């Protein structure tokens, strides 16, 4: 092992029933290095991380740690003892315990808990990292971002040599991300090796030193950050040369019907119980617009209120100028509104049901409890959309949970398109899916709009929204603060509106 190495993984193989998740993958990490682990969904990043943290056991291969030689990591506890700490995308803390307990449980010697000392230690760490939480506070009473910071504080305090950050930024806002980066640089200076997994390219180029790219469970290569420009990185991840990704707008064109000015949907003073301020909103026929703002600014809550997914407590809603009442999702569906939710796994797919059942679900519910489709109808619907959206699945009978993230998303999209909605709401349709599918979805949105469907598109990636939307509603702190269209649709203008500069 080289002198500066803290971690070296060689020839890692891991097979799940029917899937070769990792094939002969190498990975190495130096002291004081921030190393990005990149790849599309299903590339094997998570599997590699889980092998390293002892959640999975590898089939073959070796893991060597500085000062320990070759090690066998059989459980997360082993990994901790070896100085490998992990912060996951989902908060992996116990909400019913206190902040201090969450920082200290599962480690350290002795069988007795010294509450006084533990709380004092925890407070010290929290203060030094400027985390706004108290040691004896119950974790569930902290905001998600603070919970994530607590998880990081725990990892930091463990004197780890290897720190794994598995998409830790997805629930943090910009300032918090900055704070996290500060923390990472600090740790780097102390000689900790950091593995950083993220989908955000900007973040990679902001903090990382090296990049390792995986694709389909195999190693593509390890690169110095300065040797690998973005386009190259994307190409490596996709395994093909991509033309500039932003070049899709021209193909679409816009809807040119006579009723292009008609307001399909109009809301005024709409407010739900999810804590957003009342807002006004409308969409015209064939228009693509979007809600933008930082995470937690209330974008999703707005569209959820439109769809009736949260309980509406105020305001009125008009479809085609006629007042309607939308108090639950079914009402919205009856009015021709479709909603693809942000959380695909939690709110979108019905995991154990087949692809075809997932596709017909919304239309079936709309048709009615007493009018089930015949088998032939179901198959026809499913086949049509599997072909139309190019869904990669073994068959229409395959349970949807066996599909990759991108294909699952396409199935959910198919479900709503089958309903032939007038107004389609897409909340983060491209999150956590591979770039190829991302582009497909954006193209599809523009095509649909050209044919007269109104679409509201929400994405964390501003350039995606700039490419698809002709009008953007900007949100800050759960309030609509502006609307941009035409020449105002630039990255800078959006940023300044979000930030509130005049």
């Amino acid at each position, binding site marked *: 092992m080289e002198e500066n190495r803290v971690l070296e993984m060689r020839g890692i193989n891991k097979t799940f029933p029917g899937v070769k998740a990792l094939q002969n993958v190498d990975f190495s990490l130096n002291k004081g290095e921030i190393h990005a682990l990149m790849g599309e969904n299903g590339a094997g990043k998570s599997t590699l991380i889980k092998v390293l*943290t002892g959640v999975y056991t590898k089939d073959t291969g070796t893991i060597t740690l500085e000062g320990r030689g070759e090690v066998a990591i059989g459980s997360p506890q082993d990994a901790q003892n070896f100085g490998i700490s992990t912060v996951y995308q989902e908060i*992996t803390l*116990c909400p*019913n315990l206190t902040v201090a307990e969450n920082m200290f*449980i599962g*480690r350290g010697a002795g069988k007795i808990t010294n509450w006084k000392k533990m709380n004092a230690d925890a407070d010290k760490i929290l203060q030094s990292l400027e985390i706004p939480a108290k040691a004896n506070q119950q974790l569930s009473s902290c905001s998600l971002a603070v919970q994530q910071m607590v998880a990081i504080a725990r990892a930091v305090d463990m004197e780890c040599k290897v720190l794994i950050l598995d998409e830790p930024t997805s629930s943090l806002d910009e300032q918090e991300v900055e704070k996290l980066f500060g923390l990472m640089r600090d740790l780097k200076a102390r000689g900790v090796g950091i593995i950083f997994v993220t989908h955000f390219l900007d973040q990679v180029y902001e903090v990382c030193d090296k990049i390792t790219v995986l694709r389909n469970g195999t190693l593509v290569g390890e690169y110095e950050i300065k040797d690998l420009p973005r386009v190259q990185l994307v190409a490596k991840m996709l395994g093909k040369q991509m033309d500039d990704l932003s070049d899709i707008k021209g193909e679409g064109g816009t809807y040119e019907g006579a009723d292009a000015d008609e307001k399909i949907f109009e809301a005024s003073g709409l407010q739900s119980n999810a804590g957003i301020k009342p807002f006004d909103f409308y969409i015209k026929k064939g228009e693509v617009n979007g809600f933008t703002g930082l995470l937690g600014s209330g974008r999703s809550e707005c569209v959820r209120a439109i769809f009736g997914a949260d309980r509406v407590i105020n305001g009125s809603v008009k479809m085609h100028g006629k007042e309607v009442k939308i108090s639950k999702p079914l009402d919205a569906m009856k009015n021709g509104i479709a909603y693809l939710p942000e959380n695909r796994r939690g709110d979108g797919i019905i995991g154990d049901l087949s692809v075809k059942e997932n596709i017909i679900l919304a239309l079936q519910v709309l048709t009615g409890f007493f009018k089930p489709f015949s088998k032939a109808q179901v198959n026809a619907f499913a086949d049509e959309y599997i072909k139309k959206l190019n869904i990669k699945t073994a068959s229409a009978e395959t349970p949807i949970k066996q599909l990759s993230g991108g294909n699952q998303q396409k199935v959910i999209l198919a479900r709503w398109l089958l309903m032939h909605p007038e107004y389609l709401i897409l909340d983060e349709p491209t999150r956590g899916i591979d770039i190829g599918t991302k582009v497909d979805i954006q193209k599809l949105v523009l095509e649909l709009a050209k044919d007269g469907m109104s679409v509201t598109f929400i994405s964390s990636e501003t350039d995606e929204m700039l490419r698809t939307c002709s009008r953007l509603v900007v949100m800050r702190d759960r309030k609509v603060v502006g609307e941009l269209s035409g020449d105002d649709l630039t990255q800078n203008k959006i940023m300044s509106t979000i930030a509130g500069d005049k």
Partner: protein
Amino acid sequence: MKNEKKTGVFGKMNDTMLLLTITVVIFFAMYIGAIVFQGGAFKKPQMFFNILNANAALIITACGMSVVMISGGIDISVGGVVALVSMCCAVYLDYHDGSIFGSILIALGIGVAYGLVQGFLVAYLDIQPFIVSLAGMFFARGMTTIVNTAPFNVADEEFTALKLARIVIPGMGTTNKKGIYVPAYVEIGVIVALLVVAVLFVVLRWTKLGRSFYAVGGNKQSALMLGVNVKRTKFLSHMICSVLAGIGGYVYFLHVGSGSASHAMGMEMNAIASSIIGGTMLTGGVGNIIGTLFGVLSLSTIQNIVSSAGLDQAWWTGITIAAMLCIFLLIQSVVMAQKKKALKA
């Protein structure tokens, strides 16, 4: 400090303390109410000690139940285990001329065996605890009949002496109508029960294992990621519960002095109800042993109120326990929903 929100008294308390407070307040309100409105036996301290005497076994099993429930499981075999223990000990003492020591070993042995099997199935094979312990309950009830069909009283002298042993509580006695001073007393089982409560309280509050129970009950996946040995923790929670069911079985046996297949019918239900009333959440991760003690006391106080109010038909007991359980379940459900709302806003 943006995460500090005004959430009122409910929001500030952690879940465990909140539910415990509700229970304790309700118990005292009920007991004082009984003294004021019903008077009679409730005025004498011995009434309270009798409640303890009659429910020592329930306190022990309910404590075990709380441990399992805190770690996110459930064990409905405890009533069956209690019946099996009393039957085996009774048969051993009377038919095989066994010793007290031997019978205690049998009780512990049955508990350990149950803990091993159920703990293994739940923790290491990941089978739903309800199904495992449902089978355990039926197995125990069936085995009790197989060991001996007819109920019978134990005549063994040593045992009878132990059964009749009384510990006098000084200063709590009362003078009866004839003017004779009747000392207040508790049975040996109560001492055992209070010891169990004390030990478990310490274990749950101050040991790593105890906190692991809470962690696993709060979020199994997270606990695993935090380096807690989830399987071992789950296994031990079932082990503690089953062993306590064994001990509870012996205390029960000591109190009733007989073996019968119909002993402790529905005791698992009372244990679960006591835990819930005592503030243990069904969903795991929240609970307190002191609460469980008060849960048992509340439950038996209400039973006593019902019977001394003249509603002595057998069915009233079942109905009142169920009603009380129902009410507390609803309180938990509503309070937690309120708390969540308070935090969100």
